């Protein structure tokens, strides 16, 4: 195939600088030349750079991701499609995925976060699912860093701005602050949709000579690879051609959703793929490669927003709210009418071919002619060297006692940036639209009724990055275990998870070691808990000036509740009920918030996660909920027992009288972060104790609910109302600049 393509005037010559600007190494470029048996054209170089970059090719992470467990009898589609799909019975499937939009959100917080939400929603409805909920996991820098406040304001407004307008409830997530995110905030968005099991749509094209249709909004110069475009090669009109920030248009996306679902219902669609990162390139190549078919695109047919766009620009544009679809030829007119009704662009831009080549024409010339399978399959795969961090020393609780009493510690923690209420955030999200929100944000997991019931989904997003850094393997396990626990605490059977792996530069062995360790931990936990990974996303190179973010493998968990009216909440229900802690307490202070916020130390081994125990305790709590033996449940995580207990008190306005522990030092007992624990309340303790004994689950009475105070014998009692005030105050006060 030693042909040359027509020479396009004014295209830059392929120089080593240009190759480097495309993020390709000299070796990778050699590989391209060998594959083609000639020099690539400028457009082809752009296509390769898009297909072979970390984001599309997963070249640093692939070998490790393959180790994750992805199967279970209820998994319909694991990783590899736009989103994962699981069967929830009654002919229904849940489609979900989480994805990051970190860098764009740091550059332009509102639009970056908004388009992140838009992208993940598209992944879900591309598969034929109507989105029913969103979650978001956000990591920001030190509250005192001058950029943090504006990032929080912009990101939260952007997530709300998109989801609210699109019409999906945003029901859960997390918000953390840590100076390690100073130069790199993380915005991880998750979307969950509902489809019929026999009407799931995939990216794989079938049939030769089938029309490939472009749908949605027009193409502009949005988000084209910055480094490339900044090159001087473009000459005098560089200013005009500057790549631009992607702007979200939730209105168009809502129309796109309705139009797509309508033509899917009418049986017009053979294959469908949304245009996400590297837009037209990735979507067209994937459709063809998955179906062992070639694809020919005619760029003169692509609806453009701007004049004079080059083939290179069109192939790499990341304009939002666009789709590519292979249509049944006899349904073309019908499909077009539907799209016109919704006021969207519709254009046949190509067709499938038997050649297995990816051919792109523009202005009468062939600007790219590439082997379609190799574009994806031959992408480099790296086994990057990694070094694993040694185990940290365990911390003796007696050696790290803060100079203040239990009451003061509690007051400090409950009003601290990481433990305080995130109401200021989630009140900007419409969390009640669609009328199915059984449990709103603020609990352990959100609960969303499915259609008119009786089933419901429980949804959560979790990770504890400081554990992941101290011990990647334990941290990876803990993230999965915490998601499992949050789902169990509302009475849901955990079914499957999506992961969003945010790390620094994988070319650094220590960072790669974090990645490898976390993935191993996630895999181990997912396997032990029967909680497979069905979709995910990797975001690497999150670092500034050589300083990486904390390793942050966010876990999005989905669980199923058979009868939504019986989902469990964490608020105390009435006075005089027994409070029990399920799970053992050694008083583990390594990497705890107590250590960090009160002692100014960030060291020690994080709490180990015993997966067999996690599973046993989860099963136990779910059985108590199912059999109506408990009145409230809450998992114990960051901040430990007393923080969890106070959250239950605040949620209800009811206080508690607690007994001081005898075996473990008080500060370690109340604030240690031992895993696999839940707090529950019950009117009748006997049957629970009996079951616990039989199941081998440690259950310890802690006290009773009642009154307006949280009091521990020997400590200063605290008013629930005052604790609530502290809990609620920090974030709103921070956002108006008062601290």
């Amino acid at each position: 195939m030693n042909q040359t393509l027509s020479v396009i005037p004014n295209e830059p010559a392929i120089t080593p600088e240009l190759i480097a600007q495309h993020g390709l190494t000299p070796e990778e470029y050699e590989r391209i030349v060998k594959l083609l048996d000639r020099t690539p054209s400028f457009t082809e170089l752009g296509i390769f750079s898009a297909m072979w970059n970390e984001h599309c090719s997963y070249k640093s992470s692939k070998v490790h991701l393959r180790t994750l467990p992805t199967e279970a009898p209820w998994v319909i589609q694991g990783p590899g499609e736009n989103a994962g799909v699981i069967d929830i019975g009654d002919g229904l499937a849940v489609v979900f995925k989480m994805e990051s939009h970190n860098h764009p959100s740091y550059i332009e917080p509102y639009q970056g976060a908004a388009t992140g939400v838009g992208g993940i929603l598209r992944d879900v409805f591309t598969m034929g699912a109507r989105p029913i909920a969103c979650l978001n996991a956000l990591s920001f820098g030190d509250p005192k860093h001058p950029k943090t406040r504006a990032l929080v304001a912009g990101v939260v407004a952007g997530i709300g701005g998109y989801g609210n307008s699109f019409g999906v409830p945003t029901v859960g997530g997390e918000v953390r602050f840590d100076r390690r995110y100073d130069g790199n905030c993380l915005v991880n968005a998750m979307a969950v949709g509902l489809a019929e099991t026999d009407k799931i749509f995939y990216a794989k094209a079938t049939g030769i000579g089938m029309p490939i249709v472009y749908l949605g909004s027009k193409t502009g110069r949005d988000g084209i690879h910055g480094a490339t475009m900044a090159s001087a090669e473009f000459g005098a009109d560089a200013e005009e051609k500057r790549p631009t920030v992607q702007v979200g248009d939730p209105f168009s996306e809502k129309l796109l959703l309705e139009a797509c679902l309508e033509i899917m219902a009418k049986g017009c669609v053979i294959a469908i793929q949304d245009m996400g990162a590297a837009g037209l390139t990735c979507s067209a190549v994937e459709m063809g490669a998955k179906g062992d078919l070639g694809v020919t695109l005619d760029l003169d047919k692509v609806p453009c927003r701007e004049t004079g766009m080059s083939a290179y620009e069109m192939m790499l544009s990341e304009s939002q709210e666009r789709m590519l679809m292979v249509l049944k030829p006899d349904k073309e007119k019908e499909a077009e009418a539907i799209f016109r009704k919704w006021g969207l662009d519709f254009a046949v831009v190509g067709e499938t071919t038997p050649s297995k080549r990816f051919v792109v024409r523009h202005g009468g010339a062939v600007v790219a002619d590439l082997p379609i399978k190799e574009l994806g399959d031959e992408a480099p795969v790296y086994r990057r060297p990694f070094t694993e961090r040694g185990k940290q020393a365990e911390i003796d609780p007696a050696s790290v006692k803060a100079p203040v009493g239990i009451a003061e510690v509690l007051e400090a923690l409950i009003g601290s940036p990481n433990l305080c209420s995130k109401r200021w955030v989630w009140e900007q999200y419409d969390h009640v639209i669609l009328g199915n929100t059984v449990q709103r944000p603020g609990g352990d997991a959100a609960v969303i009724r499915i259609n008119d019931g009786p089933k419901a989904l429980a949804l959560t997003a979790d990770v504890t990055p400081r554990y992941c850094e101290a011990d990647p393997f334990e941290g990876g396990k803990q993230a999965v275990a915490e998601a499992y626990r949050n789902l169990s605490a509302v009475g849901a059977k955990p079914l499957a998870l999506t992961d969003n792996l945010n790390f620094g530069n994988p070319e650094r062995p220590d960072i790669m070691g974090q990645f490898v360790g976390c993935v191993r931990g996630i895999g181990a936990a997912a396997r032990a808990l029967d909680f497979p990974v069905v979709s995910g996303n990797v975001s690497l190179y999150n670092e500034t000036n050589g300083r990486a973010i904390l390793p942050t493998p966010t876990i999005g968990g989905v669980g199923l509740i058979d009868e939504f009216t019986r989902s469990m909440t964490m608020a105390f229900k009435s006075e005089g009920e027994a409070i029990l802690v399920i799970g053992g307490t050694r008083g583990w202070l390594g990497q705890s918030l107590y250590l960090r916020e009160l002692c100014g130390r960030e060291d020690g081994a994080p709490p180990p996660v015993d997966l067999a125990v996690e599973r046993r305790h989860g099963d136990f709590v779910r059985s108590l909920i199912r059999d109506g033996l408990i009145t409230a449940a809450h998992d114990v995580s960051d901040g430990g027992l007393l923080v969890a207990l106070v959250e239950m008190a605040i949620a209800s306005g009811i206080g508690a009288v607690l007994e001081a522990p005898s075996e473990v030092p008080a500060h370690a007992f109340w604030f240690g972060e031992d895993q696999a624990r839940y707090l529950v309340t019950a009117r009748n303790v006997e049957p629970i104790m009996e079951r616990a004994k039989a199941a081998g689950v440690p259950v310890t009475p802690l006290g009773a609910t009642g009154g307006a105070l949280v009091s521990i014998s020997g400590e200063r009692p605290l008013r629930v109302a005052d604790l609530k005030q502290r809990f609620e105050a920090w974030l709103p006060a921070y956002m108006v600049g008062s601290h």
Partner: protein
Amino acid sequence: MKSAVVVFPGINRERDMARALRLASGREPAMVWHADTALPAGTDLVVIPGGFSYGDYLRCGAIAARAPIMDAVRGFAAKGGLVLAICNGFQIACEAGLLPGVLMRNAQLRFICRDVYLRVERSDTPFTRGYNAGQVIRVPVAHGEGNYIADGETIARLESEGRVLFRYSSPDGMIDPNWNHNGAMNGIAGIINERGNVLGMMPHPENHVEASMGRTDGRGLFAGLLDHFKVAA
């Protein structure tokens, strides 16, 4: 009760509304497309639901208010037909001249979704006969621009003619700025037109209609409307 729900591009609470109407009346409402020029024959109640018609671009409700179907809605209202306009619907009704005033951005400039308390000011209208005057109900709001304003003369007229049907209040019915989340003048959450047949309100009673979901304070509005048509029949 035969109801018709008007659907503009970008409207997104039409399903919530359809469910509330169905649960109240046992009947599926007709969904009417913005480009249509007529309402289904025999329509008793027209509903303009919540959402982001046309993305709320330009001004909330501005573009929808000029859609073809709105002439039919205006005609229907002019003949005394009942129109229920909620959230974006309220904004559209104001822009369409069916109701006076404007909904500006919330005073704190943020979108707010939370349960609020409303004092029902009158029970002698088709929209509020399912409640008692002075009753306080709890329903959600979800909007960025619900801050009702009008000129002094209009406000005075609304008040003197008893056209404010719902007001943001404390749980025990006090009108208090601390319980007015969007800064609306006089705590106005919902008003009717002069003739009393068009109601615009920001909160979402349609999201609180099922006991199994925890709250039913929105039911009174739909039950009242049903009652109104039963009595009329």
